[in-house]
């Protein structure tokens, strides 16, 4: 039940709201509005904003091949990254919440450790580990006789993208394992014990007990995973630098390069790119949300 605000309480309510409201206005709402505004101008960040170009920025963005390459890379990165990390971290989390699994503290620490490395630094470590001349990956593969000649992961677009996806999973895995573990804590152990008595297989337990029980949280985890993956930035800066050439550009890197990368800064252009991408991302994410919802309705209809 919510108490109506009255008397002196009103002052307190205003005081409690103020810190959040001020920052929310300044760093979220106003920037959103300003991004829309800037996107209609040709503005380098210096001097007054006066060169109105209408939809000019948008028409150039739509024709900018680099932008579409960045969009494609970002979506590809987000989808592949999510498709690998969510199921794997769920499996890991399931094991980590079972009583009979040993050494849980050790595993938890191992999986969690990469989280305390800033993602940009992780990128730098891996540029060394993956380098062709004396990096660990090439020297291990050579020692094992799997390859004869060293190869450069960062020489082609696809292997560089794969490296981005895998390093990102390496870094963030523990966080998603933790999300799943928290979700799984709401599933009572007794349910599994009862299923064990009935001789249920692990697969049956997963699909019939675990997934249905954690579904509401799972949808949120899925959305978080997709959206966070679409913001990938630091890793691209340090691991591939958008290369080879510009072939691993992602949208946040594109925006950064346009806005702050080289003089003259192109704030207007970068803002238009940011908005267009936010719009595309919104459609992608909400479309995915709709599919999940529709699937749930269908399941209800058929009673499965």
């Amino acid at each position, binding site marked *: 039940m919510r108490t*109506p605000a009255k008397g002196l309480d009103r002052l307190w309510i205003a005081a409690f709201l103020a810190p959040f409201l001020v920052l929310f206005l300044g*760093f979220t709402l*106003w920037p959103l509005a300003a991004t829309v505004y800037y996107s209609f101008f040709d503005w380098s960040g210096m001097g007054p904003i006066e060169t109105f170009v209408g939809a000019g920025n948008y028409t150039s963005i739509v024709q900018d091949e680099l932008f579409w390459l960045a969009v494609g890379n970002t979506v590809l990165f987000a989808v592949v990254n999510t498709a690998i990390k969510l199921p794997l971290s769920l499996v890991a989390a399931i094991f980590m919440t079972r009583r009979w699994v040993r050494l849980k503290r050790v595993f938890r620490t191992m999986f*969690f450790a990469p989280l305390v490395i*800033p993602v*940009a630094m992780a990128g730098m*470590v891996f540029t060394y580990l993956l380098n062709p001349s004396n990096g660990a990956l090439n020297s291990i593969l050579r020692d094992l006789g799997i390859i004869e000649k060293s190869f450069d992961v960062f020489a082609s677009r696809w292997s560089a993208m794969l490296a981005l996806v895998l390093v990102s999973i390496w870094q963030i895995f523990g966080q998603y394992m*933790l999300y799943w573990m928290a979700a799984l804590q709401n599933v009572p152990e007794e349910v599994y014990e009862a299923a064990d008595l009935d001789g249920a297989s692990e697969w049956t337990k997963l699909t019939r007990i675990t997934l249905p029980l954690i579904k509401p949280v799972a949808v949120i985890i899925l959305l978080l995973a997709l959206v966070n993956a679409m913001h990938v930035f630091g890793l691209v800066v340090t691991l591939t630098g958008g290369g080879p050439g510009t072939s691993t550009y992602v949208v946040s890197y594109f925006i950064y390069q346009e806005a702050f990368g080289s003089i003259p800064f192109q704030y207007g252009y970068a803002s238009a790119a940011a908005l267009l991408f936010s719009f595309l991302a919104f459609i992608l994410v909400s479309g995915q949300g709709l599919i999940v919802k529709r699937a749930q309705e269908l399941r209800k209809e058929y009673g499965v």
Partner: protein
Amino acid sequence: MTARRWTVTLVMLVVGAVWAYPFLWTISAAFKTQQGMFTGGASLMPDLWSFENFERAWVNAGFSRFFANTVLYTVSSTLIELVKSALCGYVIARYRFPGRDFLHKMIIATLFVPVASIIVPQFVLIEQLGLLNTRAGVILAMSGAAGALYVLLFIGFFSSVPDELFEAAKMDGAGFLRTFSLILPLAKPVIAVVVIFQFIANWNEFNIPLVFTLGQPELQNLAVGMLSFQGEHVTDWTGFAAGMTISFAPMLIIFLFFQKYFVRGLAGATKG
């Protein structure tokens, strides 16, 4: 049962070893000499145990300053984020006031706004406030950017506190502030989650410090400082590894001490 237990343990150990390898490699590289690093390949054993790299990173390369900046940014931003989201969440959950529903909806709507896409106006705002290239500017931008998720966590939690508690507080004649100070300690699990997540996120923050400290090494945090260090000392990988080790060691120790609260806190916050 035992066969399964051993298989799972073995598989997890192998995967865990792969997971830990880049970590261990970095730590061992911090003790290697340049020569040992270059010829060492995948080896985790330093050729000579040398502490010289740490000294070089800490003193010459300015990691002591990056470290101090990171601690300052992380602690202040986490505190500001905690306070603003707890206060706002409490009021939205327990009181009716004009614009309440609208505000709640706006917070949900902006949950997924990417920071990277609105960083230009944030930059302009900090510049207008005269805070560009100051520590206050970085802190403000870092603590202003995130928060919608945490407010929602607090709203969820405070809404689930039984009304009887509030009635009882009222009966005892507790005013607005007194009631809040009675209820707040109940929110420990949510507070733990906000602090832990935001502490990690702020410690690792890269985008905001990068943009807001362009060309100002004395203001940079570890993540950004590391990048400029690499730019200036392209070949000093052992110094870089030492800098890395310095930057993640404290977080790792904190995690080892508090890891059980991570899961417990998160589980507590998502319930209800």
